[in-house]
């Protein structure tokens, strides 16, 4: 899936500072889309990613996406990654892979660690598209081997072809929990049941129906009480909860599973934004602390943009749209506005508005509305 070859022009000795007019941090759906949009508008970005190949979490998405044609509906996530990489390879964007941005220093200098060297990148403009990390929840023994993030299990089975367990309890009946459960079965792993503490299934009906047809029980108003085992998971205790999320007496039961998958949400990876001194706002609907940003994805710090899950947890489709928006806006700030840049920005804004008007976009729409209501001035305390 990797496109192009590593850019040796930026892998010079430690004391050398490489300057770039636009650096994009993160090569998932948002970062790739930002890079493509900026390059189309004549601003060749430098794209860095900590993985050996681009695509971010798209590369483990074996299911077909929904949405509009411009967002590759009906195409599997992993194939969307391939399409975006092909589009990028046709541009003059430069790539630095196996490279982790570990710090942002005054003068907008990014410290980037590669296996055997430290790069210093002075970026006039930066689009941060670092994505999100999986959440955990508190229960006894939640640190035992066998308690894994749902995305982690998806990576192991869909990217590397290994089975991390034999029989799984899935915690969380949102889209990730439902989709990963189905993919577990495709990988030859048994799913004992899917539970969710909420009284209703959070994900799309179509994903829940596929599991139901395979006989996988989906239990709303259930929680995991504890994991059993000494060195690794050998079982799980689940129980029903009441409306106040308190465990109902005499509803505990033991499931014989060797894996507990947590699909309990994501948190934006915002460390670099904090270092950039972006104004951060706590918005529960967006997954926690996010950077305030305007309608073109610029944060409170001029020249610093955000796109994708780190600007608020949503989905790959909206990440691609935000990426296009941020990439085009950053390019505009370099080269000025053009008819072409306006088209990209206005189309992306219109499509985002459309998705967030839908029933499953409500939460993000509410969160983004809260952000917009905050002033953008940098008032970090």
């Amino acid at each position, binding site marked *: 899936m990797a496109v192009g070859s590593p850019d040796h022009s930026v892998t010079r000795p430690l004391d050398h500072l490489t300057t770039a007019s636009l650096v994009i941090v993160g090569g998932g759906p948002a970062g790739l889309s930002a890079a493509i949009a900026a390059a189309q508008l004549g601003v060749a970005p430098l794209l860095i990613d900590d993985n050996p190949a681009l695509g971010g979490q798209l590369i483990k998405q074996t299911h077909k996406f929904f949405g509009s044609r411009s967002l590759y509906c009906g195409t599997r996530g992993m194939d969307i990654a391939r399409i975006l990489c092909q589009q990028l390879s046709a541009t003059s964007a430069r790539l630095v892979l196996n490279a982790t941005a570990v710090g942002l220093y005054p003068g907008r200098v990014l410290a980037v660690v590669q296996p055997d060297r430290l790069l210093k990148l002075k970026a006039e403009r930066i689009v941060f598209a670092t994505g999100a990390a999986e959440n955990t929840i508190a229960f006894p023994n939640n640190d035992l081997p066998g308690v894994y993030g749902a995305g982690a299990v998806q*990576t192991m089975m869909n990217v590397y072809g290994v089975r991390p367990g034999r029989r799984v309890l899935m915690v969380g009946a949102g889209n990730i929990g439902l989709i990963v459960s189905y993919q577990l079965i495709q990988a030859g792993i048994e799913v004992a049941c899917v539970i969710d503490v909420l009284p209703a299934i959070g994900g799309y009906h179509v994903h829940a129906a596929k599991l139901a047809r395979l006989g996988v029980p989906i239990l709303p108003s259930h929680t995991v009480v504890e994991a*059993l085992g000494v060195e690794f998971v050998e079982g799980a205790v689940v129980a029903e909860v009441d409306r106040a999320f308190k465990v109902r007496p005499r509803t505990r039961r033991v499931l014989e599973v060797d894996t507990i998958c947590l699909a309990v949400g994501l948190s934006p990876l915002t460390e670099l934004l904090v270092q950039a001194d972006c104004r951060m706002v706590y918005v529960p609907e967006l997954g926690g602390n996010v950077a305030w940003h305007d309608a073109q994805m610029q944060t409170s710090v001029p020249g610093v943009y955000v796109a994708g899950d780190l600007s608020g947890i949503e989905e790959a489709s909206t990440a691609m749209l935000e990426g296009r928006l941020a990439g085009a806006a950053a390019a505009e700030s370099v080269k000025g506005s053009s008819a072409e840049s306006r088209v990209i920005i206005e189309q992306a804004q219109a499509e985002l508005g459309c998705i967030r008007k839908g029933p499953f976009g409500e939460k993000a729409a509410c969160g983004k509305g809260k952000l917009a209501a905050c002033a953008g001035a940098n008032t970090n305390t």
Partner: protein
Amino acid sequence: MPRRTSDRRPPTAHRSPPTARRSPQGNRITAHPILTFAPGTEVEFSFEDEALRGIEGEPIAAALVAGGVKVFRVTEKMHRPRSFFCAVGKCSSCLMEVDGKPNVMVCMEPLKAGMKVRRQVGRGKLE
């Protein structure tokens, strides 16, 4: 019936879990309705001085999972066993000792032939 062990009693550390004795390729997916996995080059490496085989260039963590290894490290104070959690280089749950170097994030580190992988105990020490 699984054992109930909700107390924070430290486990009997370092004992290899029974699953670690499974055949090295026991957890590889061989048939899948959507995906095909390129065979790759098989290489030998060691885990706790025991020979295991993996695919060159895959993360060390994937090779360990394929070989049935579940406990990657033991924590400093409570001696709790740990494995990977996020598998994408974000959470630092999977730090191990590789070729004598501690704190290697094995979910990201590519496997090479002859690597010596050990469970990390505590924070790890530099020789």
